[in-house]
């Protein structure tokens, strides 16, 4: 039987959100099947928590001071693994070209990847928080202030990381290049996230935490705008 491949009913105009959710759906579906990215991130972050737990003999006061730093070290390094893997998937079998051939504004691809990566970050952060609380006997980390900082910090980290991983994915030394590019750029996000979550853990008043929170919000907005404007240029030859 001959099946006509040409059908007059098929129209092509792709709305922004529809195509963006298609990218998110694709990332979640593929990861839900292989767990390659998440398993690497989980193992790495758990090991970081474990190593720090054995390396430091912390009393209650010291624990309050260093807890946020340990948490963010685990998030940042595990996140780098995830970001690298997330773009490596797009380079396999030329998939990135397949995405770029779609008749959509290319920022759609960027935002889709950001949402996907952010979801993976949260999927790592939730068990890491529980593990941290158990290992360090420090259940005070489950407070709304810390969670707000983790959300804002993760957004900033993922927004920058997705942009830079798209850039480094074009290079042959992408595995090495991403951390080198990412850490200096993302430093303001990490410093403010560590400071703000530390302040919340020390139960300081909100007026002392607000400057760091404000900086996180500003960085998130600026980096999101930069990613939106520049993504097209970094994926084009």
């Amino acid at each position, binding site marked *: 039987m001959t099946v006509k491949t040409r059908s007059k009913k098929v*129209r*092509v105009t792709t709305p922004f959100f529809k195509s963006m959710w298609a990218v998110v759906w694709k990332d979640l579906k593929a990861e839900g099947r292989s767990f390659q990215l998440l398993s690497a991130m989980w193992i790495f972050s758990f090991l970081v928590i474990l190593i720090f737990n054995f390396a430091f003999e912390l009393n209650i006061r010291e624990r309050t001071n260093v807890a946020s730093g340990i948490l963010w070290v685990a998030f940042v390094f595990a996140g780098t693994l995830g970001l690298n893997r997330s773009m490596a998937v797009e380079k396999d079998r030329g998939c990135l*070209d397949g995405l770029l051939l779609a008749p959509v504004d290319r920022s759609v691809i960027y935002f889709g990847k950001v949402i996907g990566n952010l979801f993976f970050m949260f999927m790592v952060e939730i068990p890491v928080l529980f593990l941290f609380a158990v290992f360090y006997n420090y259940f005070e980390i489950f407070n709304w202030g810390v969670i707000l900082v983790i959300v804002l910090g993760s957004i900033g980290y993922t927004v920058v990381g997705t942009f830079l991983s798209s850039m480094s994915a074009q290079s042959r030394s992408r595995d090495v290049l991403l951390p080198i590019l990412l850490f200096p750029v993302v430093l303001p996000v990490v410093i403010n996230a560590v400071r703000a979550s530390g302040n919340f853990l020390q139960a300081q008043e909100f007026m002392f935490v607000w400057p760091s929170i404000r900086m996180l919000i500003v960085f998130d907005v600026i980096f999101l705008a930069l990613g939106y404007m520049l993504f097209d240029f970094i994926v084009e030859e």
Partner: protein
Amino acid sequence: MSMIKVKNLVKMFGLKTILKGMNFDVEPGEFVAFLGPNGAGKTTFLRILSSLSMPSFGDVKVAGYQLPQHAAAVRSKLGVLSHQPLLYGDLTAEENLEFFGRMYNVNDLGKRIDEMLEVVGLSKRRGDLVRTFSRGMQQRLAIGRAVVHNPEILLLDEPYTGLDQDASGILDDVLRTIASEGRTVIMTSHDLVRTEDMASRFDVLSKGKVIASTNKKNISKNGLLAFYRDAIERSKIEEEEKKRDRKNKK
């Protein structure tokens, strides 16, 4: 109106010029085979037509839209098949078509996916992960991906690379079906026998320029190899003459 119109196209990577003032014109429904040695600029040219690469200079119009200004509109008219399948290994055949169908906002997608899987002969493997497919199966599914949105123009960049005889035969059938539906097709290939059989026009590209062009009716049966060799040979002679002239002038 030409489906593809290219005037004085130049593409440079750094100081290296890959396409050197290329001119090219394709009418709707033509099947153009793009021939040429490795490094002639065939893939670069197709990447520019598909808006994956920006022209350095020159004028490129595809389906009436100017590149790179109207790149998204051009992309909606194009289907691209390269030697890489551009498919996700951790998604099934059906999910891959579903994803690309969503990206192209294809209406009645479920029915369209069924049609495509039947055309490429993968209906029975629709639920299998693409990474478990052979190279030939991946390439057939890649055809489904390339035409799922019913494009006006198909760009095929060495689609037979890495395929065995059987897989190439199946690919032939699928491509013939698709081309017979009035699409404009541009294909690069090193396989002259297959190309001669499929295309209606043959252009030879060498060192960034189209050096010869002919229609199928102008060449005898099995005459494509002679036409190609002659074009390359003439290009080499011209190049040597130019070099000699430049030396003499100095």
